[in-house]
């Protein structure tokens, strides 16, 4: 035996056992051809695969079908399975056990949440249950790790046993003197093949299993005291408040406000530290490495590229840490519950609320968190629309452009700049919901039909799971999205620092500009940038962006900000030869910039509004594209998203400029 599979229903504590068995020695990938997450790790030399949770081997969702197919293959591989049960729902979980047991593969049954069982005055006679099932049964408390040693010992000593079968014999078929069993082939029925007769057969199968499970648990094996189930009582009492039509929504808004405040404020310092660390490293490289092109490549290409990835780590880690707590306590399901009615109008459901709200911090973790949505049509709608929500990277761009657009004045008790910012946020939200609605209507995927949402009991978070989840999600972002961001950053650096012209040409142009222009601050860097490959690219795109009110300089900023929106501000600083990237000098510089042909301000109201609208809609973030590709499994979806958003941005920016002009 060199590998085993962990099987169980959702919320059975399967992943907690997986984390306890493998520690951080685990890798996260996708099952081939699909985007369902595959988690595997090692206990000594035994490979453990944590399968997606499934309610039954009569698979329904995409995730369940992956698990079903993996479990059915265990028969051929002779691979044993550990089935994890939730002690609070033992009767229901044993129905799944009976389905797997009928495959006649070696098994161990782990009953999790033994602590909660004691709290509800219930008990299980393990020895008697073991005898009736025919395979080893262990009790576990995944929060404290109690019972883990016994499970490890059983796995390592290959203590698996083939359990007694339940309904397998009812699938026996005797034909042409050969007895064959049709259980597995019946399980493989797909949605299209489901008929009245087939459904009746499945109903009969479930009825038989439920009856057999009841028999097994009879005679004092399971004593469940519903009246004194403290956990259930506490959950019901809390639900009365947390799902209340008024207080429930107030508490939900307050918790979300705290979560996003934490994502913004707690990440400020670590993000600054990462920024400073990379700036220091760039300086160090310039000082220590003599070769100029090599030190430029590292300090201006590779290190900023790496910084572009690393700078998102604090936001992603904090968001997933807090979402992990909400999920572990059971509150995430309640959020889905209270927001479902509103989101249904846009073709979404309550399960979309967290990814959408996460997008206010950053679209990357938001898109990653859509894995909790089991309806493929809804998931793709959210992935497609989420980048329209106003992420934190848009904030520096908005701040600068609004400051150039209007002066600091108040309308009533509100500041004018603040009101414009609020309008941009609302515009982002409205466009997200409209686009999600359109995608949902046009999607080729069928809705799964019956929408269900499990409401687990409230419990204190399992901190190990919270930290592991945060670490794995962050690592996944750094490795997967990082590869793409890193490559494109180097390409952008090459285009911005190389030119078909020589040094003498730059000197001549520099002197020409100084004589022609009253702008005495003009620097050699700005001249080099104008005649770099990126500069030529800016001039190539100039005819296309001229109707929006932009010149080639804004063109370069638009192209370079494809890497990340916030690069727009930095690029403008370089182009307009401002030594510092502080907001105030950039704002003043943009205000003073004059259109040479008309003599009017370059950043007039029309250009500014046009730019603001462009940034509301345009998908100027290669990290998002990389994550969309990772989550959807192909570039086509990411490119289509980029094309559609750029087109919308262009149309709105064009209309705004032409009307206001």
């Amino acid at each position, binding site marked *: 035996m060199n590998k085993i599979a962990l099987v169980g229903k959702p919320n059975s504590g399967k992943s907690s056992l997986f984390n306890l068995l493998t520690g951080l020695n685990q890798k996260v990938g996708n099952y081939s051809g699909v985007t369902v997450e595959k988690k595997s790790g090692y206990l000594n030399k035994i490979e453990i695969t944590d399968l997606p949770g499934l309610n039954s081997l*009569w698979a329904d969702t995409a995730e369940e079908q992956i698990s079903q197919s993996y479990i059915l293959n265990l028969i051929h591989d002779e691979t044993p399975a550990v089935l994890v049960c939730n002690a609070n729902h033992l009767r229901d979980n044993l129905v799944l056990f009976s389905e797997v047991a009928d495959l006649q593969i070696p098994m161990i049954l782990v009953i999790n949440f033994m602590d909660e069982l004691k709290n509800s005055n219930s008990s299980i006679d393990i020895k008697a249950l073991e005898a009736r099932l025919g395979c080893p049964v262990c009790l576990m408390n995944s929060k404290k790790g109690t019972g883990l040693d016994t499970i490890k010992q059983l796995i390592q000593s290959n203590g698996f046993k083939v359990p007694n079968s339940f309904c397998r014999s009812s699938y026996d078929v005797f034909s042409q003197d050969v007895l064959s069993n049709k259980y597995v082939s019946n399980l493989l029925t797909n949605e299209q093949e*489901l008929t009245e007769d087939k459904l009746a057969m499945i109903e009969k199968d479930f009825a038989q299993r439920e009856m057999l499970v009841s028999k097994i648990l009879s005679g004092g094996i399971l004593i*469940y005291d519903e009246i004194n189930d403290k956990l259930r009582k506490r959950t019901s009492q809390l639900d*009365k408040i947390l799902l209340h039509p008024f207080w429930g929504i107030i508490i939900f808004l307050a918790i979300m406000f705290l979560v996003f405040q934490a994502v913004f404020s707690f990440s400020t310092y670590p993000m600054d530290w990462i920024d400073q660390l990379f700036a220091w490293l760039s300086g160090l490289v310039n000082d220590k490495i003599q070769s100029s092109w090599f030190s430029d490549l590292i300090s201006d290409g590779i290190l900023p590229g790496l910084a572009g990835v690393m700078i998102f780590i604090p936001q992603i880690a904090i968001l997933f840490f807090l979402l992990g707590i909400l999920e572990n306590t059971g509150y995430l399901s309640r959020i889905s519950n209270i927001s*479902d*009615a509103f989101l249904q109008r846009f073709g979404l459901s309550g399960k979309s609320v967290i990814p959408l709200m996460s997008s206010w911090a950053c679209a990357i973790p938001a898109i990653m968190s859509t894995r909790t949505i089991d309806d493929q049509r809804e998931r793709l709608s959210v992935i497609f629309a989420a980048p329209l929500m106003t992420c934190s990277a848009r904030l520096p761009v908005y701040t600068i452009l609004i400051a150039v657009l209007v002066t600091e004045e108040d309308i009533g008790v509100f500041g004018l700049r603040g009101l414009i910012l609020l309008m941009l946020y609302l515009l982002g939200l409205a466009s997200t919901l409209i686009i999600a609605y359109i995608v949902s209507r046009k999607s080729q995927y069928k809705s799964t039909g*019956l929408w269900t949402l499990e*409401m687990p*009991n409230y419990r204190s978070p399992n901190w190990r799971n919270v930290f592991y989840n945060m670490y794995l999600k962050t690592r996944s972002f750094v490795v997967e999205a990082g590869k793409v961001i890193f490559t494109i950053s180097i390409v952008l650096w090459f285009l911005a620092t190389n030119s078909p012209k020589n040094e003498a040409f730059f000197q001549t142009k520099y002197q020409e500009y100084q004589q022609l222009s009253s702008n005495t601050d003009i620097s050699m860097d700005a001249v080099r940038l104008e005649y770099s490959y990126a500069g030529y690219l800016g001039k190539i795109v100039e005819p296309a962006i001229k109707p929006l009110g932009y010149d080639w300089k804004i063109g370069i900023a638009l192209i370079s900000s494809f890497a990340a929106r916030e690069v727009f501000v930095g690029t403008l600083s370089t182009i307009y030869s401002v030594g510092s990237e502080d907001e105030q000098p950039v704002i003043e510089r943009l205000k003073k910039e004059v259109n040479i042909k008309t003599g009017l301000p370059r950043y007039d109201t029309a250009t500014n509004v046009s730019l603001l609208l462009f940034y509301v809609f345009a998908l100027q973030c290669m990290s998002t594209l990389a994550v969309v590709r990772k989550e959807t499994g192909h570039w086509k979806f990411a490119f289509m998203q980029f094309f559609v958003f750029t087109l919308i941005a262009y149309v709105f920016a064009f209309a705004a400029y032409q009307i206001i002009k």
Partner: protein
Amino acid sequence: MLSHFGVVHLTKLKYGEKAVVTAIRLGFNARKKLLTYGISLGTIVKMEYSPSFSSLVNINIQGKSFCIRKLDAKNIEVIKYSIV
């Protein structure tokens, strides 16, 4: 239309009330999905929460709590269970 006297839609149950499922008027796939959640004819369901503003009903089957949409719940007929 309800099948016979005394039968109500699942949405009509009040908080804490129990009932026996007597008919499920949904498609094959929806019925199969309900089966995996433990709901079939004869199952005892307990209403946990069904606020008027919400699109969902929260029901409990053998201690396990979950929500389905009211739109689907209206296609599930139940008869109130008098023994608590």
